[in-house]
């Protein structure tokens, strides 16, 4: 058993499930957005606010942003533990990336709040 504090999940299995579940959410969100863009040739401000004004769309977008947070955290942690062997350097990079992901999530929350 290899114990690591900086990972996201409680175990390797937990990380694995979170990574796949978040990927699934992101894939459906990406497909939905592509479909919306294709189906809306005249993309006006009203069309955007109309879409994001729906409660379900706000929840879906926040869910997708949470998936970005989880997926990015675990994924970047995996890449950094592979390639950055200096512990302090890896810690700093992980901190910056994790902070950026949290900032994305919070920004998304307040943007959606304002629509």
């Amino acid at each position, binding site marked *: 058993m*290899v114990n690591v504090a900086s990972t996201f999940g409680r*175990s*390797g*299995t937990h990380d*694995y499930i979170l990574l796949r579940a978040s990927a699934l959410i992101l894939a459906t969100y990406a497909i939905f957005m592509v479909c919306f863009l294709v189906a809306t040739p005249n993309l006006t401000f009203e069309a955007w606010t109309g879409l994001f004004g729906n409660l379900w769309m706000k929840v879906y977008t926040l869910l997708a942003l949470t998936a970005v947070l989880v997926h990015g955290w675990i994924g970047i942690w995996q890449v950094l533990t*592979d390639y950055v062997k200096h512990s302090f350097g890896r810690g700093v990079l992980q901190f910056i990336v994790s902070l950026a992901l949290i900032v994305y999530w919070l920004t998304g929350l307040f943007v959606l709040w304002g629509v």
Partner: protein
Amino acid sequence: MKKLQFSIYRYNPDVDAKPRMQEYTLEVDEKQDMMVLDALIMLKEQDPSLAFRRSCREGVCGSDGLNMNGKNGLACITPVSSLKGKKVVVRPLPGLPVIRDLIVDMEQFYTQYERVKPYLINEDKTPPARERLQSPEERAKLDGLYECILCACCSTSCPSFWWNPDKFVGPAGLLHAYRFLADSRDTATEQRLDDLDDAFSVFRCHGIMNCVSVCPKGLNPTKAIGHIKSMLLSRAV
């Protein structure tokens, strides 16, 4: 007569400041083919300082795992004619510390092998008088697992093992781990899974299947790793 060109990795830490590639030429009969190990033995007659491991010379012992023209394999069962290119480039197995020339230090590999407790654990207080019986179906589950000869061709072709040889068990060790997880006579399944359930030991395998493409015994460690992941997942959800 034809000339076979070889470029061989040379490094003697007692003498050399850094590794180098040394060129060799071997003259053989026009229609003659040979295994890479045979060629190395002939080259060693030319240059006795060339160092490599070999023992059974028939693909059973796993001593002469090498990197030949960029792909890991056993030198004793790899015909020179099967290697494409103008010359044969021979290097030690990648990712492990080099002791000398083509000889690598396999301690990290064996440490990971040891970690998976590669032996039968049975907590049964009253062992049977003669032997632990298996049905033909139970025994069949071990096929494709027990044949591993620990040559390290798979683990040293795996980037996950290169980057984290101290944490990721590697394909060879995990093949053996599943060999005992799949064994109907073994009673330590939960304990074995507990020991593997972290972010590195099993889950650092991303299924790129280098291990499958290089295994000289034709085994499929990726499939075994998939079974271990399934076992971990099915008890977690």
